[in-house]
């Protein structure tokens, strides 16, 4: 359990308290007591903290309420209305429960979606003056991508730029941290200049941050730990500062620990000084780095860009060979990582709009229930009107009643959303995107609480004001009719529309579950092509070389050689272990998506669809998913080539250019032609291993079955192409171990063997090869989405039943009169059922239309499940829809039959007496 109070409550407390000693002192005191209570294992610490926040709110924000009570009568009126609203909730528990759960559910869904959309669409950098923090990137106009080898330029910018201050840089490295047991674990670290901590405005939890002196050549190696790393690897030891650990092969002193949540520059948990070479750094050389800074007071992005452009122009003149086509650009810090495209924003808005519609539709359902209740209170309202209550007053009261319900629902919805986000939000996001940047916070923010309040007010307006206006319409004539013994609120046109929309949406909702079903099916049927359950997979990383001066470039080559030897030794030792059938390597694991490259065949120049005429329904594919593999790969997977030959050691020799393709490639790229002997080359971009560059031809020497190239979330069938490579040349390195028995049981032994071979090897992401799909976050999200849809469906059905049942009950008097006048039962049934049945009928038709529109829109997207959607309306779909319509009509009939039968059983005289 965290020793820090929930972030959103803490922020709320900070916003409540006046700045200065009171805020500083009280927030710190409550933090301290919270940590103490958590450490003591006391229960309900969160509730204790909430009470403290509430008390602070009363003490420091309570003054306004008192003034209003003294000065304005509106407050008394509102207070009275809210009290009456509260009593009404108790008086009608069924409605309270159904309506409250509905609204809470809608608000919860709205908040969750809002949080996820804003976290990505509109992130903010949670550091002081976050909007003034910038990145400087050097854009290679020829390659169309950023040039990250900018150590040379960084030194120039740092010395000369005036409009950007605190200029710093970092680079991502993986360092193996060896603990007391001698076991190495890879840690995602940043080598960063000390200015990073000043830009981030972060104070350490313990010790100190990095200082300028740490960057000097020859300074003692030091590191600052992230909060999570400190907790997980050092057990939160308060005496950790000053301790020495082995980090990347050298003894390093820990000088500080950062606070929880700090991850600048992205999602780092370990910081070491970036030693910028002081000697003459060659332009466009050295390791890739990223440059950041803060706009100087008075400077803007435009002035900074102007200054930078001038520096860039000078560099282009002085060093045309390297800088002629380089353009330095300054951009806000977060845009340096990700800038949502117009399409992304449209998608985000659409999702949020969907959430708003969900709230409105569900609150429409609650409105129906409240309207039905208001109708039962007609006589009370008429009396109030007769006693002088204006229409506005009555509507206000109904709004206040709905507001009480909405308020309770907002609290429940917020708590539920918080649980959903805590339980699934981070898993979902990290499952899809890897470790989250520190500025992505899926906890509830004050803005989210405001949105919840907004949704509650919107919902209450729909659920309270609409019925209020309807029920008070023509109150004067109602009063006269009531005096004459007649009356009765009727469901008019607007309510008919609300019911129809309810039914339509209820029909359309299951289509989400339908899509979910197809998605799961698509995922499950995405075959690995080999016995994945028998393989243990693990990612292997080795420390990047430590940057020390201008020799950094040449140093890059050294570890690769030693890695090749290390990996060979690791393979040899593991293969000697009992139960191990073989060890092999690949850059990316099967079914996790390989990078695709545009390719060209020697015997078939690029062909367009038009050129093919009518001879083929599809143009030949000119893209391949490329995997870099160890030559033993197919043999270890137990899947030898089906044609040609497998890779061998000779294929690794420089200048040997051979590939093996899979059946997907043969079918789609070669369109069934014989693959062996075909020549293939990469058109623009090349896999980095293929150092020959674009234009070199590769010969197809073998064909294999489809072995999990592509990924379940990608559209279409992959065309797989394999290149042989030594493990040290892979950008990412995954080891696959064939194990007889439970693969996961071998994990401790693999760790031991790896530590014995080379303690700086970092092993992460141990999993069975068939478990890869289980961690796929989107599936989890779709499960949640289906759950939401199912709950919405149930609530909607309950609402429709209640309202239809109510409308029929209201016609008891009419039934009595008709029967008294001699009408037959069949005719009465027909009359009674006509309207509800037509509502449901129109609703089902509209819902079907909605499904068709949604399906058409979905096909236009790039999501894989669009592939699995049926391309045309089949008989089975018609039958499914008919079945569903029958269920809806059944519910409708049930809702009508029971009260109608009851009405028919009533004596006419008795019926005439009912009000």
């Amino acid at each position, binding site marked *: 359990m965290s020793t820090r109070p929930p972030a959103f409550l803490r922020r709320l407390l900070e916003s409540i308290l006046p700045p200065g000693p009171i805020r*500083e*002192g*009280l*927030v*710190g*005191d409550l*933090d301290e007591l919270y940590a103490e209570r958590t450490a003591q294992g006391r229960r309900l610490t969160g509730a204790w903290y909430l*009470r403290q926040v509430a008390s602070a709110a009363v003490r420091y924000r309570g003054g306004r309420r008192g003034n209003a009570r003294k000065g304005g009568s509106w407050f008394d009126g509102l207070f009275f209305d809210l009290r009456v609203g509260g009593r009404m909730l108790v008086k009608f528990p069924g409605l309270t429960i159904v309506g409250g759960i509905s609204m809470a559910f809608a608000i919860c869904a709205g908040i969750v979606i809002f949080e996820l959309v804003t976290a990505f669409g509109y992130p903010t950098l949670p550091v002081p003056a976050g909007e003034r923090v910038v990145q400087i990137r050097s854009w290679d106009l020829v390659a169309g991508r950023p040039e990250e080898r900018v150590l040379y330029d960084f030194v120039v910018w740092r010395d000369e730029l005036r409009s950007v201050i605190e200029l710093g840089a970092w680079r991502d490295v993986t360092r193996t941290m060896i603990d007391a047991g001698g076991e190495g674990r890879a840690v995602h670290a940043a080598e960063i200049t000390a200015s990073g901590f000043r830009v981030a405005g972060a*104070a350490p939890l313990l010790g100190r941050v990095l200082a300028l002196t740490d960057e000097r050549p020859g300074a003692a190696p030091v590191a600052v730990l992230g909060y999570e790393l400190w907790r997980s690897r050092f057990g939160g030891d308060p005496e950790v500062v000053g301790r020495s650990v082995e980090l990347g092969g050298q003894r390093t002193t820990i000088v500080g620990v950062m606070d929880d949540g700090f991850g600048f520059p992205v999602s780092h948990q370990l910081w070491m000084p970036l030693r910028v070479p002081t000697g003459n750094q060659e332009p466009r050389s050295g390791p890739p780095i990223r440059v950041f800074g803060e706009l100087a007071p008075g400077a803007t992005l435009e002035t900074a860009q102007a200054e930078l452009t001038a520096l860039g122009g000078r560099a282009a003149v002085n060093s045309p060979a390297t800088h002629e086509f380089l353009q330095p650009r300054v951009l806000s810090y977060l845009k340096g990582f990700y800038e949502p495209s117009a399409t992304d924003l449209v998608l985000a808005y659409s999702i949020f709009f969907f959430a708003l519609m969900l709230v409105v539709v569900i609150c429409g359902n609650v409105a129906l229930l409240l309207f039905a209740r208001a109708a039962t209170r007609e006589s009370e309202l008429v009396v109030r009107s007769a006693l002088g209550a204006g229409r506005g007053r009555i509507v206000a009261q109904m709004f206040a009643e709905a507001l009480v319900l909405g308020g309770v629902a907002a609290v429940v919805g917020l708590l539920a959303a918080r649980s959903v986000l805590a339980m699934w939000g981070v898993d979902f996001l990290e499952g899809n995107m890897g470790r989250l940047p520190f500025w992505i916070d899926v906890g509830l923010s004050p803005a989210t609480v405001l949105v919840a309040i907004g949704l509650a007010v919107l919902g209450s307006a729909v659920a309270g004001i609409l019925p209020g206006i309807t029920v008070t319409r023509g109150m004067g004539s109602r009063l006269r009719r009531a005096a004459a013994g007649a009356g009765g609120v009727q469901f008019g046109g607007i309510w008919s529309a609300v019911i129809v929309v309810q039914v339509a949406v209820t029909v359309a909702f299951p289509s989400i579950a339908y899509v979910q079903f197809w998605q799961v099916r698509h995922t499950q049927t995405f075959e690995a092509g080999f016995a994945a359950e028998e393989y243990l997979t693990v990612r292997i990383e080795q420390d990047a070389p430590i940057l020390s001066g201008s020799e950094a470039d040449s140093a890059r080559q050294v570890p690769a050689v030693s890695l090749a030897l290390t990996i060979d030794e690791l393979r040899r030792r593991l293969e000697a272990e009992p139960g191990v059938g073989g060890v092999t390597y690949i850059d990316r694991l099967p079914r996790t998506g390989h990078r695709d490259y545009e390719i060209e065949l020697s015997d078939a120049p690029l062909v367009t669809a038009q050129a093919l005429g009518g001879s083929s329904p599809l143009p030949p594919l000119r893209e391949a998913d490329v995997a870099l593999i160890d030559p033993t790969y197919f043999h270890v997977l137990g899947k030898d080539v089906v044609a040609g030959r497998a890779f061998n050691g000779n294929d690794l020799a420089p200048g040997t250019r051979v590939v093996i393709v899979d059946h997907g490639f043969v079918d789609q790229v070669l369109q069934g032609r014989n693959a062996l002997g075909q020549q293939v080359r990469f058109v623009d971009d090349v896999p980095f291993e293929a150092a020959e560059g674009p234009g070199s031809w590769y010969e197809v020497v073998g064909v294999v079955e489809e072995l999990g190239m592509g990924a379940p979330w990608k559209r279409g069938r992959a065309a797989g192409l394999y290149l042989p490579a030594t493990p040290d040349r892979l950008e990412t390195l995954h080891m696959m171990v064939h194990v007889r028995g439970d693969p996961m049981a071998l994990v401790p032994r693999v760790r031991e063997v790896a530590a014995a071979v080379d303690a700086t090897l970092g092993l992460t992401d141990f999993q069975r090869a068939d478990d890869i799909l289980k961690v796929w976050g989107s599936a989890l999200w779709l499960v949640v989405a289906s759950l939401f849809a199912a709950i919405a469906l149930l609530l909607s059905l309950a609402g429709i039943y209640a309202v239809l049942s109510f409308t029929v009950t209201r016609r008891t008097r009419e039934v009595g009169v008709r029967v008294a006048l001699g009408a037959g039962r069949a005719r009465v049934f027909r009359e009674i059922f006509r309207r509800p049945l037509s509502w449901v009928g129109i609703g089902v038709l509209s819902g079907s239309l909605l499904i068709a529109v949604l399906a058409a829109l979905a096909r236009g997207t790039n999501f894989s499940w669009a592939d699995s959607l049926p391309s045309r309306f089949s008989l089975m779909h018609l039958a499914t829809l008919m079945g569903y319509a029958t269920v809806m009509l059944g519910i409708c009939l049930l809702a009508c039959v029971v009260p109608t039968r009851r009405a028919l059983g009533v004596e006419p005289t008795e019926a005439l007496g009912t009000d």
Partner: protein
Amino acid sequence: MTNRAALGEFEHLVLATALRVKDAYGAELMRELEERTGRQVQGGSLYVTIDRLERKGFVVTRLEDPNGRRAGRPKRYVEVTAAGVRALAEQRDALLRAWQDIEQTLDRA
């Protein structure tokens, strides 16, 4: 004793606790008050009371550097002034006078 100097019940408890505890600050006062009185103390109430006592001149407060602890949040120390000690003494005397001769009645109850 002037009305301004009169101590409310909670003020009385806070002042007495601040006098007893060495280096009293918010969290320490809350702990001590809870332990001594057996009732849960709300931080907001405590701070409002401390502010009131400070306005009355019975305590002075100061913020102190946390030395890297408490996530950088300083402690707000409370020190009872001579006027505060006098007010407590007067309060005690007044209470003792009020309690005179009723101890036995209470014991029988």
